[in-house]
C-alpha cells in the first residue's frame, strides 16, 4: 500500500480525548482565559469545541477573541509548506498536484477532521476546505446541499477554526479555506484573517471576491501570511486573465467551465488552450477545478499540462451522502485513491 493512514476513522474519539496534550490547544485556552471583557463561559465553550470536535454551538465570539492572534509554533509554521511551495514541489517532482475539496462540518466536524488527515495521508498536495454559507451562489446542487447539512449540524466559523487549530499541525500539506465573502465581512476582515492564520490555514479562495475587489482583503491576507488564490474562467478576457494570473498567490485557479461547481460528463476542451494561454503569461502553477470528477478527467487535465487538479462536488458527495460518517470516510478514501492513482 502506497499510503499509510495516519488515523483511522475510528480514532476520532481517541484523538479528541487528549487534546490538552497539544501545545497549541493549551496555549489557546491559556490565551483565551484572561482576555479582558471576554466571558469565561465563552472561553470554555471555544476550548471544549476544540477538544471534543463536536459540532458544538459556540457562542459567536466578539472581535476581541480573534483580534490577538496566537503566535504560531515556529516548528509547525515552518514544517507545513506554503501553498506556492507545495505546488512548486509537486511540479519539481513531475507530479500533478492533487487538490481535494471538502465542506467543513458535513456531516460533522469530527468527520471533517478525520477526512483532512485521510486526504493528507493519501498524498493531497493542498486541501481546500469549504466554509459553509447560506447562499452559495457559485455552487451547484451538491455543494449547496452539503453546506446546508453542515450549517444544520452547527458548523460555525468558530467551530471550524477550532477544529483546524487541532488538525493542521498534524498535516503535511497546506489547507486553503474556500469561503464566500459575507462571513468574512461579518466577522471583520482583519479578525477573520487572524483567526485563519491562528488555525494554521495557509491560503484563501473567495469565490465572490473577484480581482477588482481584492483590495478589500489583500492587506489583511498579507499581514497574516495567507495566500489569496484568484480564479480565472473561460469567460475571462485575455487581458484580464493576465492581471489575475499576476496577482494570484499560491497558484492560478482555472475554472474549467462557464458555470457553477458540480460534476460534468466531459472536461471542457477549451481548458487545453486556456492552460497554454495562462502559461504564456505566468510561471505560477495552474490548477484546474469545477466539473472534474473521474480518473479520466484528471489524467486528461494532467496531460494537457495543468500543475494541479481540484476535485470538489464529487469528493463532497462521497462524504456527505453516505449512510454514516464511517462509511463516508471509506468511500472518500477509495475515491480519492482512484483519482490520485490516475495522476502522475
Amino acid at each position: 500500500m502506497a499510503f499509510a493512514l495516519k488515523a483511522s476513522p475510528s480514532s476520532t474519539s481517541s484523538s479528541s480525548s487528549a487534546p490538552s496534550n497539544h501545545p497549541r490547544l493549551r496555549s489557546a485556552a491559556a490565551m483565551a482565559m484572561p482576555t479582558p471583557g471576554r466571558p469565561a463561559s465563552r472561553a470554555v465553550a471555544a476550548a471544549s469545541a476544540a477538544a471534543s470536535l463536536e459540532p458544538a454551538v459556540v457562542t459567536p465570539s466578539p472581535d476581541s477573541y480573534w483580534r490577538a492572534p496566537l503566535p504560531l509554533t515556529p516548528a509547525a509554521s515552518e514544517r507545513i509548506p506554503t501553498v506556492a511551495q507545495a505546488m512548486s514541489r509537486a511540479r519539481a517532482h513531475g507530479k500533478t498536484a492533487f487538490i481535494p475539496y471538502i465542506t467543513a462540518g458535513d456531516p460533522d466536524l469530527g468527520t471533517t477532521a478525520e477526512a483532512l488527515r485521510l486526504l493528507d495521508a493519501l498524498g493531497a498536495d493542498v486541501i481546500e476546505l469549504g466554509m459553509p454559507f447560506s447562499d452559495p451562489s457559485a455552487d451547484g446542487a451538491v455543494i449547496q446541499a452539503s453546506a446546508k447539512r453542515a450549517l444544520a449540524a452547527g458548523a460555525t466559523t468558530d467551530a471550524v477554526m477550532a477544529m483546524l487549530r487541532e488538525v493542521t499541525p498534524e498535516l503535511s500539506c497546506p489547507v486553503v479555506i474556500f469561503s464566500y465573502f459575507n462571513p468574512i465581512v461579518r466577522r471583520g476582515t482583519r479578525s477573520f484573517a487572524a483567526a485563519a492564520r491562528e488555525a494554521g490555514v495557509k491560503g484563501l479562495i473567495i469565490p465572490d471576491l473577484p480581482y477588482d475587489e481584492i483590495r478589500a482583503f489583500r492587506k489583511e491576507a498579507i499581514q497574516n501570511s495567507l495566500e489569496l488564490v484568484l480564479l480565472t474562467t473561460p469567460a475571462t478576457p485575455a487581458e484580464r486573465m493576465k492581471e489575475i494570473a499576476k496577482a494570484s498567490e499560491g497558484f492560478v485557479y482555472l475554472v474549467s467551465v462557464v458555470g457553477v461547481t458540480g460534476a460534468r460528463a466531459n472536461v471542457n476542451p477549451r481548458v487545453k488552450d486556456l492552460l497554454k494561454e495562462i502559461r504564456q503569461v505566468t510561471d505560477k502553477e495552474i490548477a484546474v477545478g469545477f466539473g472534474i470528477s473521474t480518473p479520466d478527467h484528471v489524467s486528461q487535465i494532467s496531460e494537457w499540462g495543468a500543475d494541479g487538479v481540484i476535485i470538489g462536488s464529487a469528493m463532497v458527495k462521497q462524504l456527505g451522502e453516505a449512510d454514516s460518517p464511517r462509511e463516508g470516510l471509506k468511500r472518500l478514501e477509495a475515491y480519492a485513491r482512484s483519482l490520485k492513482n490516475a495522476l502522475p
Partner: protein
Amino acid sequence: MAASAIRNPSPASAAAVAASRSAVSTSRSILRVPAASRRSLVVAAGMRPAKAVAAEAPTPVAERVNGAEVARPDAMGRFGKFGGKYVPETLMHALTELEAAFHALADDQDFQTELDGILKDYVGRESPLYFAERLTEHYKRADGTGPLIYLKREDLNHTGAHKINNAVAQALLAKRLGKQRIIAETGAGQHGVATATVCARFGLQCVIYMGAQDMERQALNVFRMRLLGAEVRAVHAGTATLKDATSEAIRDWVTNVETTHYILGSVAGPHPYPMMVREFHKVIGKETRRQAMDKWGGKPDVLVACVGGGSNAMGLFHEFVDDQDVRLIGVEAAGHGVDTDKHAATLTKGEVGVLHGSLSYVLQDADGQVIEPHSISAGLDYPGVGPEHSFLRDIGRAEYDSVTDQEALDAFKRTSRLEGIIPALETSHALAYLEKLCPTLPDGVRVVLNCSGRGDKDVHTASKYLDV
C-alpha cells in the same frame, strides 16, 4: 376643504413648469446619466438639455450630498462604501459589457425613441399624481389641520406595478446586446410578470426563478407568467423565497452568461444593476416633480415609499436627493415585529455584509449566515437591500422605518375603503406608515406616496387575514 389646500400655481411658477415640462417630458432622459455632476437649481436642471454621456462613460453620477461631493456610484460602482461587484469571476466580463452597453445606449437616438414610445403607448406613462382626498381627510386632526396625501399611481402602469419601467428598458438593452434568452428572479411575481410581459412583447425566451413558497402565495401571478409564455422554475432551496430565487438566477446566469441577459428586478445586485435599475425607474420622480409643479407650483415636502430591494423608492427619491427640503422616507417590512425573528427590516436591523453581488445591509446572524426574512408581502420578503439605500441611510439623507404585517393589512383595507384603490401588500406598508407620520406633520405639508403596485394579486393572501 382639503381640495382648497391645493394652491393654484402662481404665474411665475407656471412659467417654470412650462419650461421644465418641455425639457423633462422628453422622457428620453430616462437613460441618461447626467454628465454634469449635480443640479444647483431644480428648475434649471429640468431645463438643462439632455446631454450625451457616452464620451464620458463610465463616468458616474456625482451628487452633492450634505455639502460633500459624493459620487453615486463611483467608477467601481460604489455608493460610499456600499455596492461594488462581489460576484464569481465568470460574470465579471458580462457586467463590464452591460455597463458599456448601458452608457452607449444613453446616446443612441433610435434606442431612446423606441423606449420613449413603448413607455408611453405600451406601459401607459405618465402615471397620474393623484390627490387622495379621503385619506387626507382621514388624517386630519380635530382642529381640521393635517398633511395632504398624494399617490403616485404606478399601480396604473401596464402589469400593475412600477416594475415594468425597468423590465421594458432592460429587454430592449438585451436585444441590443444580442441576447435572446432572458432570466429573472421574482418575489411577489410583479417583476416576473413584467419580465414575462416584455419578453412576450419582444419575442425573447423567458425563464423566471421563483421561490416555491412564493409560488403558492402568488399563484395568480404564476399563472399570468405562464400565460405570457414564460417558464417559471420553482426554487426549493433555503426558505424558497426571493433570496433563494435570486441565488438561483445568479447560478443560471453564471452558467449561461454567453447567451443570456439577467433582468435583475431591483436596485440591488452587482454594479451596474443598482445604478441602471435606478436610472430606468427615475422617471417616477421626474414625473412627480413636474406634476407637483403643475398641481401646486412647488415640490413635495415628504416622499414615502416601501423598501424591499428598494427600486420603487429609488425611482421616486433619486430626483429629489439633492433637494434637502424634501424628506425621503423608506418603509420596510417589520413582519411580526422588528424585535421578533420574523421580519424583513434590513436597514433597521441588518448588519453590513455582501449578498447577491453588493455590499449593503443584510439580515444575518453573528456568523455571517443570511437569515430567513419574513413578511406577509412577498415583494418585501428579502434579507438584503439596494446599496444606495444603505448609503442614503448612513449619510442621514433618507429615513427608514418599518411597519408590521398587521399594520400593512389594516392599510390595505383602509385604502381600499377610503380611496377605492386596492394597493399591493408591498405598497400597503408605505400606506400604513401614514398612521405614524401624519400626526407629526404640520398643516398643509404635501406627502407624495409611491403607490407602487395594485393589490389584485394579494387578495387571496389578504382574505386569510382580513374579515370584510
